[in-house]
C-alpha cells in the first residue's frame, strides 16, 4: 500500500498485528478495531473488495468463454487445485494456482488455498455447526489426542456472539450432539428430505436428519444491514463472491467493518516470513514481511500478534520463526509444532432413488444444500471398532428429464423436456480423522519459495481408522436408505488424497500441558504469551463438524482475552 509510510519505525508500530485476513483473521481484526486498538492486517495475497472485485458474479453461463469449463492448458498446469469442486471458469481467480506457491508433498496432499483478502471465506461451502461437549470431551474419553483445555461451556457464549453478527440460518433442533445457536430462519427440507427425516427419527434412536445450518442471511437483522449486507437471493453462485452479501465472507462482513472502525490498516501483498522474539522482554515484538511485488523485507512491531494465516501456513510461520530461545520454531518447547495434523474424510458417497412424493417438487434453489445428519456413531458410548465418527449430508432432488436423443426437431424438443424425473437422493460422508504424531508438516531444508522462505513439506495420510469408518458409513447409510424404501442404492468410495476436503487442522494444538501442546486455553503460545493462534492450526482434534464457525468463535474470544488481560501474565 503506497500510503503507508514505511520509513519511520513509529509508523510501523501497532497495538496489534493480525496475520491473515480470512475466516479467523477477519474476526480478530474486527474485534481489535471495535476495541480501539491500532491494528495492522497482513495479507499475503491481493486485495479483494466486496462488490468491486467479484468480476464474474453477474455473468450468465453463456458469457463465459467456455461456458464454465476449465481449459486443458489450465487443467494440466493445475492438477492439484483442478481437483477442487469449485475450481471452474467462474471462480478460479480466487484459487492459488499450483505453480504460484509450490509446496513439497512427501505424501500426496491436495492443499487447496485462496491467497487474497478474505482468503477461503469467499469460497467456502458455508456449512456452520457448533461443536458439542461430545467433541471437546472426545480425546480425554477415548485417548486419541491430548485433552482439550476448554469445554463447550467456555466457547458457547462466543458461538452466540459470532453467530449473531455473521448470520446463521437453522432450526432449533434440540440435539445434545449438535447444540442450537442464534439462528435466522432455516432453509426448509423438501418433501423427500422431510420424509427421510421422519423415517430416521421413528426407526433409529439418536439419529437425526435436520435442515443444514449455513451462514446465509435468510432474514437479515439490523446488525446485518448495518454491515451493508442484504438477504440471500438463493442464487447458489456464492463462490463467485456475493453482491448481496447474502452469505458470510470476511470480504462482505468483518474486514470492511474492521476498516470502518478507523483503527485498522490492511496491507495486502505481504507474506509473513517470521515473527521475531525478544529474549530480554520474553515476548514477540513484531514480524518480518516480504512485499510480494518489490521482494523488499519490512518489519512491523506490535504488542500482540494474532496468527491466522490458515492452518498449515500458521505452522509454517512459527516453524520459520527461530531464535536462540526457540531454535525449533516459536513457542516449540514441546516439540509438537507441525505434528498431529488432522483433517476430514469426505471420500464416500451414496445415491439412490425414491418412488414416492410424486406430487411435490421444489422451486428455486436451496443455499443450505438440503439436510444434515449429525454424528451418530460412538457418541454416547464407544460402540464400533473405530474411534470417533462421521456426519453426513443428505439431499433429495428432481430434475427435468431432458435427453440428447435424436437430431433436429426431435432433439430440440428432448432438450427442453420439462417432465420431472422421480426423486433422487444422495449423501456424502464427513468423517473425523485422528491426529497422529506421524501426520506432520515441516520446513524443507533445501527448497525455498519465491520469497526466500523455506517451502512447507506435508506428510499426511489416511489410516486404518479412516478405512473402518468409511466402511461403516457405507453400511449404515445403505441400511438407512433400504429401510426408507429407497431403491437402486449405489455407494461409491473414491481414492482422493487428503486435503481435498479443505479442512486441514492442527500442528499448533491446544492443551493443558506445555510439554505436549503449543497453546493454552486462551489460544496463547504457552511459551510466548503475546502470540495467539486461533485458526485451524489450534485444533487439538477435528470433530466431524465443519470447522469455520469454531475458528470465528475462537478468534473473538482470544481478542477479548488479550484486551481484558494485556500487561498481565
Amino acid at each position, binding site marked *: 500500500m503506497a500510503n503507508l509510510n514505511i520509513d519511520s519505525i513509529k509508523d510501523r508500530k501497532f497495538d496489534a498485528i493480525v496475520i491473515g485476513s480470512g475466516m479467523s483473521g477477519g474476526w480478530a481484526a474486527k474485534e481489535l478495531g471495535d476495541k480501539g486498538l491500532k491494528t495492522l492486517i497482513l495479507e499475503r495475497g491481493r486485495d479483494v473488495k466486496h462488490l468491486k472485485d467479484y468480476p464474474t458474479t*453477474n*455473468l*450468465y*453461463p*453463456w*458469457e*463465459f*468463454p*467456455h*461456458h*464454465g*469449463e*476449465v*481449459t*486443458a*492448458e489450465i*487443467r*494440466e498446469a493445475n492438477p492439484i487445485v483442478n481437483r477442487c469442486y469449485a475450481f471452474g471458469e467462474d471462480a478460479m481467480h480466487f484459487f492459488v494456482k499450483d505453480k504460484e506457491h509450490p509446496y513439497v508433498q512427501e505424501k500426496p496432499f491436495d492443499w487447496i488455498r485462496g491467497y487474497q483478502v478474505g482468503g477461503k471465506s469467499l469460497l467456502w461451502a458455508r456449512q456452520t455447526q457448533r461443536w458439542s461437549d461430545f467433541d471437546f470431551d472426545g480425546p480425554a474419553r477415548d485417548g486419541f489426542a491430548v485433552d482439550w483445555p476448554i469445554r463447550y461451556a467456555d466457547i458457547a457464549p462466543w458461538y452466540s456472539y459470532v453467530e449473531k453478527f455473521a448470520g446463521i440460518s437453522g432450526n432449533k433442533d434440540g440435539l445434545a450432539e449438535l447444540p442450537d445457536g442464534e439462528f435466522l430462519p432455516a*432453509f*426448509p*427440507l*423438501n*418433501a423427500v*428430505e*422431510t420424509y427421510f427425516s421422519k423415517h430416521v427419527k421413528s426407526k433409529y434412536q439418536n439419529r437425526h436428519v435436520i435442515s443444514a445450518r449455513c451462514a446465509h442471511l435468510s432474514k437479515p437483522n439490523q446488525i446485518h444491514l448495518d454491515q451493508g449486507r442484504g438477504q440471500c*437471493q*438463493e*442464487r447458489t*453462485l456464492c463462490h463467485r463472491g456475493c453482491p448481496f452479501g447474502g452469505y458470510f465472507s470476511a470480504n462482505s462482513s468483518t474486514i470492511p467493518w474492521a476498516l470502518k472502525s478507523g483503527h485498522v490498516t490492511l496491507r495486502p501483498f505481504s507474506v509473513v516470513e517470521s515473527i521475531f522474539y525478544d529474549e530480554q522482554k520474553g515476548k514477540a515484538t513484531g514480524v518480518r514481511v516480504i512485499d510480494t511485488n518489490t521482494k523488499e523485507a519490512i518489519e512491523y512491531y506490535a504488542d500482540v500478534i494474532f496468527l491466522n494465516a490458515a492452518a498449515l501456513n500458521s505452522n509454517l510461520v512459527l516453524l520459520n520463526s527461530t531464535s536462540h530461545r526457540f531454535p525449533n520454531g516459536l513457542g516449540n518447547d514441546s516439540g509438537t509444532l507441525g505434528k498431529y495434523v488432522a483433517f476430514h474424510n469426505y471420500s464416500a458417497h451414496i445415491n439412490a432413488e425414491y418412488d414416492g412424493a*410424486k*406430487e*411435490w*417438487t*421444489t*422451486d*428455486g*434453489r*436451496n*443455499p443450505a444444500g438440503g439436510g444434515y445428519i449429525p454424528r451418530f456413531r460412538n457418541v454416547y458410548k464407544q460402540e464400533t471398532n473405530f474411534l470417533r465418527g462421521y456426519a453426513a449430508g443428505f439431499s433429495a432432488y428432481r430434475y427435468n428429464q*431432458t435427453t*440428447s*436423443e*435424436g*437430431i*433436429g*426437431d426431435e*432433439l*430440440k424438443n428432448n*432438450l*427442453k423436456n*420439462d417432465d*420431472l424425473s422421480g426423486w433422487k437422493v444422495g449423501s456424502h460422508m464427513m468423517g473425523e480423522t485422528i491426529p497422529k504424531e506421524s501426520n506432520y508438516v515441516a520446513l524443507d531444508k533445501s527448497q525455498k519459495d519465491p520469497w526466500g522462505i523455506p517451502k512447507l513439506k506435508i506428510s499426511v495420510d489416511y489410516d486404518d481408522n479412516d478405512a473402518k469408518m468409511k466402511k461403516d458409513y457405507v453400511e449404515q447409510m445403505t441400511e438407512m436408505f433400504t429401510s426408507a424404501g429407497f431403491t437402486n442404492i449405489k455407494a461409491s468410495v473414491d481414492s482422493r488424497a487428503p486435503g481435498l476436503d479443505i479442512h486441514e487442522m492442527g500442528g499448533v494444538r491446544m492443551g493443558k500441558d506445555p510439554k505436549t501442546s503449543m497453546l493454552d486455553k486462551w489460544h496463547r503460545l504457552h511459551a510466548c504469551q503475546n502470540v495467539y493462534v486461533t485458526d485451524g492450526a489450534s485444533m487439538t482434534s477435528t470433530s466431524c463438524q465443519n470447522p469455520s464457525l469454531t475458528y470465528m468463535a475462537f478468534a473473538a474470544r482470544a481478542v477479548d482475552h488479550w484486551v481484558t488481560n494485556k500487561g498481565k501474565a
Partner: protein
Amino acid sequence: MNRRIAIRNMALILGSVAVLPSCLNDKGKPVVALKHLKLDADQENVVNNLTETILPKTSTPGAKDLGINLFVFKMIDDCFDQKQQDEFMDGLKEFSAAVDEKYGKSFNELTPQERAAFVTGMEKQAKENRVKTQAADSAKKPAEPNKAENFYNTVKGQTVFGYTTSQYFMTKEVVYELVPGRYNAMFPVKKKATA
C-alpha cells in the same frame, strides 16, 4: 471486460464463416483460428455441417445461426487435451471415410437429407453400442470403441452443451434465473411452470 471482447470476436468469426466458405474454394485453408487442432477447410466444414445436421435451422435457430459450430471448435481446441484431440482427428477421418464408402462422396457434398439420414444411422448405432457397452460393463468386458462414433458423440455432446448453455436457449426455450430470490421446498408439481 475481456470476456465481452471475446464474445464480440466470436460474433465476428461467425460472420466470416457465413460468408467465406461459399466464396473460397481453397481446400487447404481453414477459416476458424485454432491453436491446437490442425484441420483443413474440408474437415472444418464436416464439423460445421455436422453441427447443423444435429441442430438444424427449423422454426427455431440452428447451430450455425447461434454460432454453436464455432463453440464446438473452441471447446475441442481449448478444453480437450492432446490425447482427446488426437482421438477427435482420428474419428473425424474415420467418419469421413464411412460417408465416402456409403455415398461415394464427402459429407460436405451430401444433401441435407442425405446428411440427416447418415447421422440418424449413427444415432441408432451409438444407442445400440451404449446398450451393448452397459451390458459389457456388467460382464467386465469393455466394448471395442468405434472411432467414427466417438467423433460423432463428441461433436454432438459439445453441440448440445453449447446450445443448452446459449443465450438463445436459456432465455427463449427455458428460463435461466441468475437471481431466483426464492426457495420453495414444498412446491406442488401441478403448479410447476412449463418454460
